[in-house]
């Protein structure tokens, strides 16, 4: 009897977990994307690819915000100008604002990063980190 109760509880927990995974699969995807970005930053020898990794890393966080704000059946958070619009199901507007800002910041960062890469390329003639290290060590 006791074991049955426990297993029932366990089954329940599993199902909620599976439900969570299926309903919140965006979170899982986001962390996969995050991992790919981080891996690129660390493992790639190419400076441009590293920057792409950084962008990917950031983008995954933006997606996290956006998916967090999603409300099932909700529309875009644009509120009609009536004084009392009544019952409206909209996604949370705050994360969307945040992501908009963060995207701008991200673009600025990528631009600066690429500018630096161009400068490095014009000075050393390479984009590969290992070659760069050798060249700098020789100098």
């Amino acid at each position: 009897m006791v074991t049955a109760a426990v297993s029932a509880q366990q089954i329940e927990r599993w199902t909620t977990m599976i439900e969570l995974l299926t309903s919140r699969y965006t979170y899982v995807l986001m962390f996969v994307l995050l991992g790919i970005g981080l891996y690129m930053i660390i493992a790639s020898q190419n400076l441009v690819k590293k920057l792409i990794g950084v962008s990917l890393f950031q983008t995954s966080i933006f997606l996290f915000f956006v998916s967090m704000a999603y409300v099932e059946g909700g529309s875009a958070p644009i509120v009609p100008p009536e004084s009392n619009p009544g019952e409206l199901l909209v996604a949370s507007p705050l994360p969307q604002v945040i992501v908009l800002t963060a995207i701008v910041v991200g673009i600025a960062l990528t631009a600066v990063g690429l500018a630096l890469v161009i400068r490095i390329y014009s000075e050393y003639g390479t984009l590969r980190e290992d070659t760069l290290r050798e060249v700098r060590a020789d100098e």
Partner: protein
Amino acid sequence: MSNIDLIPPLLIVAPILAATLPIALGLRYDRTGWSVATITSTGLFAAALALASVVYTSGEVIHTLGGYPRTYGIQLVADEFSTLIVLLITGVAAGVLAYTRRGGPRGNTFYTAYLLLVGGLLGISLTGDVFNLFVFLEITSIATYALVASGDGPESAVAALKYLILGTVAASMYLLGVAFVFMATGTLNMVELSTAIPAAERPVLIQTGFAFIVVGFAVKVAQWPLHTWQPSAYQQAPDGVTPLIAALVSTASAYAFGRLIVTVFEVDYLAAMPNAAAIVLTIGCVSVLAGTVLAVIQTEVKRMLAYSSVSQFGLVIAAYGVVIAGNSETALTGAVIHLVGHGLLKTGLFLGAALVAASYGARTVDEYAGLATDRPIVAGSMAVLLFSLVGIPPSIGFVGKWYIALGAVESQLWPVAAVIFLSTMLTLAYAARLLEKMYFTPATVVERPHARGPVATDGGDADRDDDSTPDSEVEIDDGRAAAGLRGGAARNPVSVGMIAIVVVVALGAVALGFAGGAIAELLEPFLTEVIN
């Protein structure tokens, strides 16, 4: 003074708007950057003083941007803690300009980045919103990358890119942490968060968020082993830039971290969170030790000072750990004072290093031999600053260390206390190395490839002699005091202003050594508010 709450937004907006001026005016005039920057930062400093006089007499000043309520609007908050940082930032920013006028870098774009950086830093200090904090962190970072990359050689671009990649990852980590906290609480305002966090239904989200935030700031504050961007960035940045970023960028990040700990998460909540205190303490203590060891083995002065920053920020982070673990008001006072004090000391030291590099091209510790006889004032000021860094009273370095150590003792965290007391010795290890070279190693021709400038005219002598009155107790000379300062008036790479600012910083470091009680008193309302 009903308009006083306009000062916080002005402090942020003014430099960012002014940042466009050097470029715009640069289309027509050549050298406008310095004037624009000087006017702006002097104004900012004056505004900061006005703000401080209000904050420390009648409590915090809050500005709500656009009038939106704080649940979803953004607030700018100038309280006792942030005002102190604002004063440091505006003061240092105005002071460093005294160096850059002759010491360079000079381009208009440099001053654009300079003002952008100041605006970002002030934003970090004043914002009351965790996402807004991210934005300002990134503004600061972008300006810093640009400033680091404006160094002469291609090395600086490599250093900047390294910094950019690590810095962006760190900021993103912080953003991710914010995302988790937002998920659990639904708000971004710091005050709202402080009530929402303990009430959150899913504390695991908060814990995850805090973990990401800790990692993010460990990079930003340059804690071992995530410090790797910092030494090369400091070293490769132009000499006039290093004092600014060394004094302010990591300091602002450390301030933000402290702000999150005491205002957003709140000490009680973190104390109950498993391992939070232990992790923060460990990061801090390990950085103190590792930073010093790395500093001792450096040959380049700027690099040595950069590693010294790793260890000094380790002290601050360790103090935060003590605050969490021991609920210690004293340690928080210490952390705040050490933040400001370290910023001031590093400004002076990097300015001194820049000055020496400008006049002799001396960059390694060995090349500093005999500096005391050639440049007694600079050497004396640097000696005062170094001893202050070691923590010899009376100086700001000692005051910070005393409060942090006392906090650790009061909280009975003996290993931490031991590390803090030992840090005196460890700091001495690299400070004494430099001092010994400056004062007790005669210069040789080999060590000094760039002899000092031609002793052509004594034109600028009169006002410099005023300068050479003894400024400090360590100020010693050998009858050749003025000799080192007499260079050709026109071609001298070192201006009076450059020397004066180093001296002022050194004097300030000593004078603030007597202000230990005063600063603690100023912080008192803030401390009682955040620590129960």
